[in-house]
């Protein structure tokens, strides 16, 4: 197998598995709450239904509203295709820079907020303002927690960082534990999950993501939702890349790729199950407590940075 083939394979897998991952979380949650749930294929059924439906648009909608779903989906797709999932060193690995990745996600966020405000409904503007407020707090925290890893790998390139983790001997790293916790908190917030946002409903006054896409219908809504699902899987893959990369293959031979695929799916299932447990166990935070939650994540990431300098530089 050539490495370009694996590159394409992992990008396609990431996009196609995304609805299944969303369905998996929903099913886990349902089981944990003693419900049966709609099965892991339900997000795919929803997407198929939405793609078949007619688009209804407000008469005031401008070109921003029409193009935003495509921009959001493409930006998320680009980000997803760049992140290494199976093979460490892919042809696109030079572009797999963490800062570029965060910028791509910020682009998607920017257009989603613009689209939310474009129609001029109260909910859209409210959702956009909340998203930008929380985004401004979440992004530095995310970068800070990634920088903890970059410091020891001397690079912000994902491939270099993964190679560094794979090649360094086993040791207890308190800084990594801090970075991991901060990253989990940010991933929960960025994907609009409980305790920050509730993904199951658009009937809450404190909704964030759903408020922005409330006016979308048909294929536009399908693209927006699909992008959100891809983002969830993207964050899960990013966390496995950064903190538990063991099992990723260094060469593109079939046996290694199959093993890496199996381990990747296993790690994803574990992370998504943890997410389902968190969502079942916690209540949603009051909206005004979310900045405190996010600054808590920032503080933890910063503690990781400090403890790296205090405890690990001299060792």
């Amino acid at each position, binding site marked *: 197998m050539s490495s370009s083939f694996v590159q394409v394979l992992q990008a396609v897998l990431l996009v196609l598995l995304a609805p299944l991952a969303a369905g998996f979380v929903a099913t886990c949650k349902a089981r944990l709450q003693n419900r049966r749930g709609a099965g892991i294929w339900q997000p795919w059924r929803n997407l198929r239904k939405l793609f078949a439906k007619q688009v209804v648009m407000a008469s005031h909608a401008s070109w921003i509203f029409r193009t935003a779903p495509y921009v959001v989906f493409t930006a998320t797709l680009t980000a997803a295709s760049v992140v290494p999932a199976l093979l460490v060193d892919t042809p696109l690995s030079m572009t797999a820079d963490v800062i570029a990745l965060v910028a791509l996600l910020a682009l998607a966020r920017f257009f989603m907020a613009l689209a939310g405000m474009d129609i001029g409904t109260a909910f859209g503007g409210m959702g956009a303002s909340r998203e930008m407020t929380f985004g401004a707090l979440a992004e530095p925290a995310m970068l800070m927690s990634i920088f903890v890893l970059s410091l020891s790998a001397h690079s912000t390139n994902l491939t270099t960082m993964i190679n560094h983790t794979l090649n360094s001997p086993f*040791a*207890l790293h*308190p*800084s990594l*534990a*801090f970075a991991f916790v901060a990253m989990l908190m940010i991933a929960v917030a960025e994907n609009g999950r409980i305790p920050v946002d509730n993904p199951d409903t658009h009937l809450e006054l404190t909704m964030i993501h759903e408020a922005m896409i409330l006016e979308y219908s048909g294929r536009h809504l399908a693209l927006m939702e699909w992008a959100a699902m891809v983002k969830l899987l993207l964050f899960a893959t990013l966390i496995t890349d950064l903190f538990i990369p063991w099992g990723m293959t260094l060469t593109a031979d079939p046996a290694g790729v199959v093993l890496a695929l199996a381990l990747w799916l296993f790690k994803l299932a574990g992370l998504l199950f943890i997410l389902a447990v968190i969502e079942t166990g916690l209540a949603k935070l009051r909206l005004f407590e979310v*900045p*405190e939650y996010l*600054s*808590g994540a920032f*503080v*933890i990431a*910063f*503690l990781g940075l*400090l*403890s790296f*300098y*205090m*405890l*690990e530089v*001299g*060792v």
Partner: protein
Amino acid sequence: MTAAMIQQLVDGLAALMLLTSFALLAQHRMLSVLNWFAVQGLLLAVTAAVVAYGSDNHELYISAVMTFLLKGLLLPWLLWRVIRELHVHREVEPLMNTSLTMLLALGVTLFSFHVIQPIEKISQLMTRDSMAIATACVLLGMLMMITRRKAITQVVGFLAVENSLFFAAIGSTNGMPLVVEIGIAFDVLIAALIFGLFFFQIRDTFDSLEVDAMNAHLIHGDDEE
């Protein structure tokens, strides 16, 4: 276990110590403050035991057990009884908002790291890395004392400072002589008991545990005379 493993373990415990100091600052409720305080005491006991194992210093085992009983169980229980009887378990009421306090705390940690860095270079102990963190924890405890309104939270801050001093002692000299340590432990116990009595007295005299209320009362009293 090798020396490198023990050093990593001590480093990890030091990082957790720092985390508990930040957590103490970030809590809103008295009960969770006490829980984190108990966690800090337990961490301290574990650190003492690990350092005792690593440095083959048997006296440290005794102080580890003492720390566990006193700081992990007895002091939190005493304080818990006080807050239950005084009904002050609701809010902590910081003077500044939490985000600002956390930013200050980060600044304080950076500062202590900067100050300790030259000292670390000349030390040969396996616990030298934890000195910066111990200093940071002392300053964070002081920060807790000056940013809280209720007398009881200030006392928790004071006890946290004492915890960090003990941690600094383990880190910088592999523990103090046992006699000194027993003395300090009893001092802290007596201090906690006296504080407990004080809380009741303060509440009876001023109808509140807020330090501002005491000031206002005293100034007002002066005006009357």
